[in-house]
């Protein structure tokens, strides 16, 4: 082999290879770090996440109050703001309860003490479905399951709610 033909020396070849492999490894290590740094940008909004519903914990009383908030939801066709509602109160153990207002019968919106004849109960105006304050359905009325419960968390004295989850026991 003549000196002219050998354009890449052994030393250069090794340098190039090591730089390439080293660079690759460095990139592999840095990627997760960068991802973590810009994490909120990558996070999918809406689904699964908890939303601040603008209700301070100290404003929650034992009397259920209806709160409304909006979340961004993306499905196959639309990106839209979806409104959600909940009945929020403190139960006798001083724990915050957040129930979905969607009737488990056919999906109307229930209201707290919506009928004068049934005080201290949630009432569905469509077919007179009733729920106790605990969210349990009153036997003998159309609904066959208790009201769904929102995933909740308290951060800095504010209430955050997520998705409504059906209860297991009927």
């Amino acid at each position: 082999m003549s000196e002219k033909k050998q354009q890449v020396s052994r030393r250069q070849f090794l340098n190039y290879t090591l730089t390439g492999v080293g660079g690759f490894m460095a990139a592999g290590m840095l990627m997760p770090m960068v991802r973590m740094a810009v994490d909120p940008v990558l996070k999918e909004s809406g689904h699964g996440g908890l939303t601040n519903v603008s209700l301070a914990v100290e404003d929650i009383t034992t009397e259920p109050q209806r709160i409304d908030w909006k979340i961004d939801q993306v499905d196959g066709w639309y990106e839209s703001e979806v409104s959600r509602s909940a009945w929020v109160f403190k139960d006798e153990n001083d724990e915050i309860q957040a129930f979905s207002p969607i009737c488990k019968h056919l999906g109307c919106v229930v209201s707290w003490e919506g009928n004068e004849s049934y005080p201290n109960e949630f009432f569905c105006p469509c077919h007179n479905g009733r729920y106790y304050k605990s969210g349990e359905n009153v036997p003998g009325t159309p609904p066959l399951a208790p009201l769904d419960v929102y995933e909740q968390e308290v951060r800095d004295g504010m209430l955050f709610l997520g998705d409504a989850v059906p209860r297991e026991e009927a």
Partner: protein
Amino acid sequence: MKWKKNDIIQYMEAKDFIDSVLIPLVPFQVSDDNTLPSSTFQSEVIQILANEIEKELTGRVLLTPPLHYLKSTNKDTEVSRLNQWVQDVKQQPFEHVFFLTFDSGWKKVEKELDGTLLWLPGSKSGNLQSAEMRAVIKDQVDQLGELIRSYWV
């Protein structure tokens, strides 16, 4: 229930419980530049109202696609067209039929309709995203829901 496959399947399983139909009546006229902004605005509002009412009373109300008509046509023709819709609807076990509209033209022919006319005066312009507008619409939905419920008792 909305006019969507999933809702309708649920409807078919629970026909006896869903005894009310809500038909929005929405005028449609492209020819007149002067009325275009207001009529499209009112069309948007009436559909929001209808959707919100449906949301509150899903389990007992079927919301149909709106009946569109030319604002300039004779209402008598439209009355018979609307009553044909109602006739068809009543093939199913529906007891209450409600029409929702901003068009006062229907008020005059109300007696000839096979159903209950819910006419309300609507604003002709505004910002649908504003907090005031939302509050107004929410209020109207509450009151319309109350009115519809009063027919059920």
